[in-house]
Each structure stands twice: as structure tokens, then as C-alpha cells.
């Protein structure tokens, strides 16, 4: 029971931690943006597509939501390689996370779309807005505005879940930690430090989303309340 903590032993490796943080942010930002686009398209397709498309999207969402991300990452990494295309671990990680978060986004945005009352669309039609205009101004934007808090939590969870991609040797923060602890033998300190970094990152990402929401959804800012 006489363990002496030595966080200073980690100091020479600050550069590796920093690179890990940057790569974690890069992978999760890529997955967030592309997952958001895929998820939103899927949500629209599920609401207004042909029966076949609806079935297809529903299957995609269910399969992704009921299997572990770790296994999805393995399938993406090894599966793509089996097809004969060579991609780096970082790319495979981004692809797996995109596909994963796309399914979750689809569910969340779908809930938002369902919350838009029918009368809103009818009113827009009466105002002779075109189909695209109705979709953009009356359906999608207000829908996303309503589910924005849920999306934020989901993307913070995604950032934390990106640690899983260390298992296919994507060189993000957790992988950096694994490497550093195997060099320094300071496993306890390393994982405490990394846990703390993730904690800070999750606060930063949350704050960034709040700020982004303030600038994009100006209506909420004026009203001062959620819609």
C-alpha cells in the first residue's frame, strides 16, 4: 500500500498526449459531421421514402443500434481489407464511427420530424412555399432545433466512444495512453491523466455545441427558451 504517485514521469510525453487529443478530436469531428448528414438523410427517407427505402433504413438503424461499436469497428477494419481495399486504421475508425453515429442521429432526428405538427406543413403549403422550402424552413430546421440537446449528448458520447478505435490501432488518445504506459510502467497515472483529459474534452465539446447552437438557432436565442 505504499505506492508513490509520480505524474511528473508523464511530462516528457506531453507531445504524444497532445497528438492523441488532436486525433481524437479529428476522428470524432469527421464522424459527427458525416454522421449527421447521413442520419438526417436517413430520417427524411424513413419518414417520406417508398416502403422499400423505409424498410432498408429501419434495418440499418436496428442493426447498428443493437450491436457493439467494438464489433462494428472490427468489421469495418477487417471487412474493408477483405474487399481488397487497403485503408489506414484512422480511416477505418472514422468510417465505423460515421456509420454508427448515423444510425443514432437518424433515430433522434426522426423524433424531431415527428414532433412537427401537420398543421405547420399545411400552413406552409397555403403560403405557396415550394416543397424544398417547406422541408428546409418548416420541417428540418425546427425539427433539428428541437432535438439539438439530444444530438449534443449523442456526439459527446461519440467522442468518448472513439476511444474504442484504439483497438484497431488508430493512434488516438487512448492508444497514445496505452503506448505511454507500456513505456513508463506508470499505468495508474497515465489512465488517470487520460480520464481527466477526456473529462475536459467532453466539457469543451459540450460548450462548443452550446455556442454553435446559439449562433445557428437564433430564434431560440431571441425567445430565451427551448421551443
Amino acid at each position, binding site marked *: 500500500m505504499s*505506492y508513490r504517485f509520480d505524474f511528473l514521469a508523464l511530462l516528457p510525453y506531453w507531445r504524444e498526449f497532445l497528438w492523441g487529443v488532436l486525433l481524437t478530436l479529428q476522428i470524432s469531428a469527421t464522424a459527427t459531421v458525416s454522421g449527421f448528414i447521413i442520419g438526417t438523410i436517413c430520417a427524411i427517407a424513413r419518414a417520406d421514402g417508398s416502403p422499400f427505402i423505409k424498410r432498408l433504413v429501419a434495418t440499418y438503424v436496428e*442493426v447498428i443500434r443493437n450491436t*457493439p461499436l*467494438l464489433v462494428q469497428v472490427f468489421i469495418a477494419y477487417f471487412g474493408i481489407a477483405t474487399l481488397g481495399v487497403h485503408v489506414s486504421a484512422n480511416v477505418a475508425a472514422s468510417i465505423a464511427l460515421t456509420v454508427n453515429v448515423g444510425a443514432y442521429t437518424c433515430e433522434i432526428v426522426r423524433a424531431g420530424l415527428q414532433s412537427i405538427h401537420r398543421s405547420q406543413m399545411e400552413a406552409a403549403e397555403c403560403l405557396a412555399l415550394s416543397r424544398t422550402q417547406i422541408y428546409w424552413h418548416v420541417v428540418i430546421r425546427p425539427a433539428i432545433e428541437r432535438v439539438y440537446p439530444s444530438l449534443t449528448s449523442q456526439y459527446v458520447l461519440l467522442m468518448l466512444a472513439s*476511444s474504442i478505435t484504439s*483497438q484497431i490501432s488508430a493512434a488516438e488518445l*487512448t492508444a497514445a495512453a496505452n503506448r505511454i504506459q507500456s513505456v513508463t510502467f506508470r499505468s495508474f497515472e497515465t489512465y488517470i491523466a487520460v480520464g481527466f483529459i477526456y473529462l475536459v474534452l467532453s466539457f469543451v465539446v459540450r460548450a462548443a455545441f452550446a455556442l454553435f447552437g446559439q449562433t445557428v438557432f437564433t430564434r431560440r436565442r431571441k425567445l430565451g427558451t427551448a421551443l
Partner: protein
Amino acid sequence: MTTSAFSIVHFEFLCWAALWTIGLSAIALVGGSLLGFVIALARISSNKSLRWASSLYIQLVQGTPLLVLLFLLYYGIAVFVGPTIPSIVAAGAGLTIYASGFLAEIWRGCIEAVPKSQWEAAECLALRRSQRMVHVILPQALRIATPPTVGFVVQVVKNTSLASVIGFIELAQAGKLINNSIFEPFTVFVVVAAIYFGICFPLSAWSRTLERTLNVADR
């Protein structure tokens, strides 16, 4: 050296490993709900420092990845208690902490979702705080809490796959082992994913049914 194809023997091994996945989920859920319940109560307690401490705990658990928590327990605690601790202990403890942090927050929301008038009515009947909780609030909160809790069970089952990183042989780790011997990653992991799906999908579907039948949102 001959490499054999994916066979029924491998499938049998995966099924055994799936039982460990279920067992580990059960450990995490039992431990996580006991701890999570206490923390949910602490979160709405009248004691300020208790509220603060439980809130900090939830922030810590929800703000760090489960993977890092597992590494911390497995390698970190070993520093204190000996060369290594059994992976089932580290995995069980890690998943228990993870589940408690999320369940506490889910249940706090459910307890607070019981209409204010119920709290006030209980107070008017001169029930003590504990009586009010046990006889009035919790039975109603239980109804609200069932669908999201079943939904969260799916998350726990999926996240037991992370126990593979500290050498616990459950479904994902069994998949890795088989893949190492026959090197057919695509087949192996698709089968592994299918087994997870077979466990999780009925739970997800059940959660949705509960949501409809208990019809909490429209009350």
C-alpha cells in the same frame, strides 16, 4: 499448418462466450442498479453536499470513456493489491460503476417526473419523507422508469464487449480468439455481431412495447 474454415465448433464456442456476456451484463446490472439507486436518491436529497458529491460522481462517470475506466481498474488497482487482479473483477467493477452513473441519472429524471402535486399531496397527508418516497413517489416512478431502463440494458450488454480489452473472454474476445486461429475476420465478426443482435434486439423491441403500453408520455 492447415487453417480450417469457420465451423460448428467455433459457433459452439461463441455461444458459450455469449453466456459470459450475459453473466457479465447481469453482474453489471445488479451492482449498477443498487449503486445507481443510492446515487439517484443522493442526487435529490435535501443535503447539499450529498447532492454535490453525487452530481460530481455522475459527471465523472459520464465524462470519461468506459474503456479508460476499465484500463484504470485493471492496471491501476493492480498496483495496490498485487501483480494482477482477475479480469472478471475489474470488468465487473468497471461496468458496475459505468451502469450506476447512467442509471442514477435516468432514475433521477424519472423520480422528478412524478407530478409535483403527488409530492405535495403526500406532504399534506403528513407522510414522512421516507414514507412519501416508498409509498407514493417510487411506485409511480417505477412505471416511468421501466422503458428507459430496459433500453439501457441494451447499452450494458453492448458495452460488455469492452471487457475483451482486459482479457475477459466474452463474446467479442471469443471472436478475436477464433479469428486469430482461422483468420476469417469478416465471417467471424459478422457471426459475433449477429449473436449480439440476437440478445439486444428483443430487449430493444420490448423497451419500445413497454413505452407504448405504459404510455407515459401522454398522461
